């Protein structure tokens, strides 16, 4: 990386930027020969190895099955910070975590020297459209949501998930290893979410849990058939949306009763046919899986929770943004909350930090919170998720809670807290090495491990960068 060598001769004014520049240099310049060396390379201080040639869908070919990350500051999430720690990854899982003094490094492991680095679990983005869109303005590349019916529980994002999207490598090299893929929030029942791992040779390798949750919304934006002059189709108001939602659940209960009756040995008559729409709602009506219920405004939250309680749904509240007047009530629901985006605007005549401080206010009241990268702007990149968490810290959220909000908390909300979200033995080997605080915009991720594999730290964007780097090096 000549570019970074060139930086080295430029005036560097602070220790922090010096460190950043040097670590970038070290991180990117370790030779491929090292990575390919048999039995694992002998790493240099503060360096990490870059995986070699890539296989299908940007995966590493025949990566070592035994990896050790040594000397780093470990943010375990569940059991504090270990200043000089060792993590061993074996067959895709975390096999050991502990202080260097007491944690053995297997002698045939590929070693990543993380001295001077921060090591933390892969980040978990609680709502994304990854794999459902490529170029936002190009409709042919979008499979964001089926808009023909407000009630579409049978729509499954796994049927559209594009594993080879250019967008996933762009996000994962900044430390995001897992994400919920959700349909766009434009239906009352938009479809079923999937949990993905942001690395794998194909779709099947990347989808960890299909149909992990039901995406629901009670938001004014869904009134698309009636919001405005000339509105003629139901539902055109929030009253219509609420009625339609309740009727859908009542119809499903009725369907369940009919199916149960038909299943009895003494049933006479024509068996009712299977209806995929009702079938899709059954596990959620039974409370077996969570519904992710989006509501921006406090009054929308109250209506949504009323419907959820009527049908005993297992709720994760989502998109909660303008609820500063409802904090204690939300806490009393005892449901987890995906907040914001915290970058959504305060209401006119609210203080500038009314939304920035929402994660802190909810967490203070005992609410389990998560953050997601989806926001109102044209850009919703998972790679910026840690910065939203950091901004929540600037506005009062304790640091450890901010880390949890993008790791363990969303994993627990979606029922995979035993597999993801912390540095604990037995969990999936999703680990990140960075040259500093993960929540700070100035920090550079050096190496990401997904499923115990040191992934190639490349994306279409790094390829473009490297293709045009010679311009930068041209003598002036």
């Amino acid at each position, binding site marked *: 990386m000549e570019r970074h060598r060139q930086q080295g001769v430029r005036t560097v004014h602070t220790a922090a930027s010096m460190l950043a520049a040097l670590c970038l240099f070290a991180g990117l310049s370790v030779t491929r020969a090292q990575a390919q060396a048999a039995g694992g390379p002998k790493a240099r201080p503060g360096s990490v190895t870059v995986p070699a040639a890539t296989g299908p869908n940007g995966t590493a070919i025949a990566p070592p099955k035994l990896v050790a990350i040594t000397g780093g500051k470990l943010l375990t999430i569940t059991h504090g910070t270990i200043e000089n720690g060792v993590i061993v990854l074996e067959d895709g899982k975390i096999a050991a975590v502990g202080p260097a003094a007491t944690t053995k490094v297997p002698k045939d492991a590929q070693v990543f020297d993380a001295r001077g680095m921060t090591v933390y679990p892969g980040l978990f983005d609680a709502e994304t459209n990854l794999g459902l869109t490529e170029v936002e303005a190009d409709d042919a590349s979008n499979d964001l949501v089926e808009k023909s019916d407000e009630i579409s529980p049978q729509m499954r994002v796994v049927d559209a998930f594009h594993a080879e999207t250019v967008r996933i490598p762009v996000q994962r090299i900044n430390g995001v290893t897992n994400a919920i893929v959700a349909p766009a929030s434009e239906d009352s029942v938009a479809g079923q979410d999937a949990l993905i791992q942001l690395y794998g040779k194909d779709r099947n390798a990347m989808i960890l849990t299909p149909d992990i949750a039901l995406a629901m919304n009670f938001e004014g934006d869904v009134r698309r058939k009636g919001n405005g002059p000339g509105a003629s189709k139901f539902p055109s108001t929030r009253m219509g949306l609420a009625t339609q939602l309740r009727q859908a659940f009542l119809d499903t209960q009725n369907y369940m009763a009919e199916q149960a009756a038909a299943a009895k040995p003494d049933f006479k008559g024509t068996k009712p046919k299977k209806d995929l729409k009702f079938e899709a709602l059954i596990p959620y009506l039974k409370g077996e899986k969570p519904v992710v219920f989006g509501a921006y405004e406090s009054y929308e939250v109250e209506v949504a929770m009323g419907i959820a309680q009527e049908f005993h749904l297992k709720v994760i509240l989502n998109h909660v943004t303008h609820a500063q007047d409802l904090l204690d009530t939300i806490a009393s629901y005892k449901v987890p909350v995906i907040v914001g985006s915290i970058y959504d*605007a305060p209401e006119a005549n609210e203080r500038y930090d009314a939304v920035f401080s929402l994660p802190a206010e909810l967490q203070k009241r005992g609410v389990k919170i998560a953050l997601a990268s989806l926001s109102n*702007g044209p850009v919703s990149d998972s790679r910026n998720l840690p910065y939203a968490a*950091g901004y929540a810290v600037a506005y009062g959220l304790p640091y450890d809670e901010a880390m949890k909000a993008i790791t363990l908390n969303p994993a627990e909300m979606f029922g995979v807290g035993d597999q993801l979200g912390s540095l604990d033995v037995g969990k999936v080997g999703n680990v990140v090495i960075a040259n500093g605080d993960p929540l*700070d915009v100035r920090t550079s991720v050096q190496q990401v491990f997904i499923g115990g594999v040191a992934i190639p730290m490349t994306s279409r964007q790094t390829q473009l*960068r490297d293709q045009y780097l010679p*311009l930068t090096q041209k003598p002036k």
Partner: protein
Amino acid sequence: MTASHGTLERGSVWVHQGKIAGVGVTVSAPADATVIDATGKFLTPGIIDPHSHSALSNDINEATSPVTPSMMMIDAFDNMDSALYRALAAGVTTELLLHGSANIIGGQAVVIKNKFGLSRDQMLFPNAPRSIKFASGENPKRVYGSRNELPSTRMGNFEVMRQSFEDARAYMASWDAYNAKVAKNDKDATAPKRDLKLEALADVLRGKLMVQIHCYRADEFLTEEAIAREYGYKIRAFHHALEMYKVGDQIAATGTAIATFADWWGYKDEAWDAIPWNATMSMREGVRVALKSDSNDYIRRLNQEAGKMIHYGGATEDEALQMITLNPAWIIGVDDRVGSIDTGKDADLVLWNVDPLSTYARAEKVYIDGELFFDSSLSGFGTTRFHGVMHSSGFTGAEDEEGGGL
């Protein structure tokens, strides 16, 4: 953090009559000066956004003709818009409010100082140079092409532009001929009809308007520069400029700056090759680089966007800070008055709780022309001069957002 001459670890700034009267480890301020203790905190110049559509009551695009150079953004400026308040609370003290990108040749910008709470006139940046917005690429061709009008292609875009300057040349020639006749006391001299549109285009050719061009692709930078050479004007800055890293060495030679995003990409085809290293790579190729918001959201954290440049390409703290202060000041043409903490410049200053390039930075106090306009420790809005009811023209404020202004 001076933005022009590094960081003083325990520095002092003396402000007198709205100007910076001294800066250094010590300053020779009079004994009766009000002392603000900033121990442990960070002081920067006010942040400058060279590309904003805030506070224009959503009148961002006069998208009724591809050539509208006589539109004056000041005519839509709403000084009570809450977007200004939120930008002020984020340390933004100067903004260039631009026409949108629907038109090949859009309207003329207004430069404001973010003295939220004062009148419209009092918020104008005094004697700021005039800028005009041009646009190329997808937006004009989409807007007019979707109506089956010219332009519907990039060929159409540039031909509309060339024809406009031919018209302006003819207009200027007719006035030159008239003035020559008048000089000769020719009694038959008849004044040509004054035309606001052609006057504005003539001002571009006369170099009286700084040209700010919305432009994404590498080929289009080169075409725009060629047209500028052909008609004899200078391009002040390419805005968005997401592919500048591909041709930075050539554009650096023209002196044209860029106002770019830190890491936006992929929202449309012409943003597909955007990379977050664009700003630092273009800078190393010799281009003057500013970051900008084009958004009522991102304008609230331009400091973080600058901080990302340390991550993406190893910018130094000074380089990163210059991208949101001195360099955008140059693009607006006011770098002799704002953009750094230097004696003689306007006292536009922001006091931060921690290093402003970190995620954790909050603007605590914001001064413009030496006066405190925002103080986060105050209850309510934290504003010192605003005590009324704000307007809201919606949140996006972006010309490129789908469904938004354009």
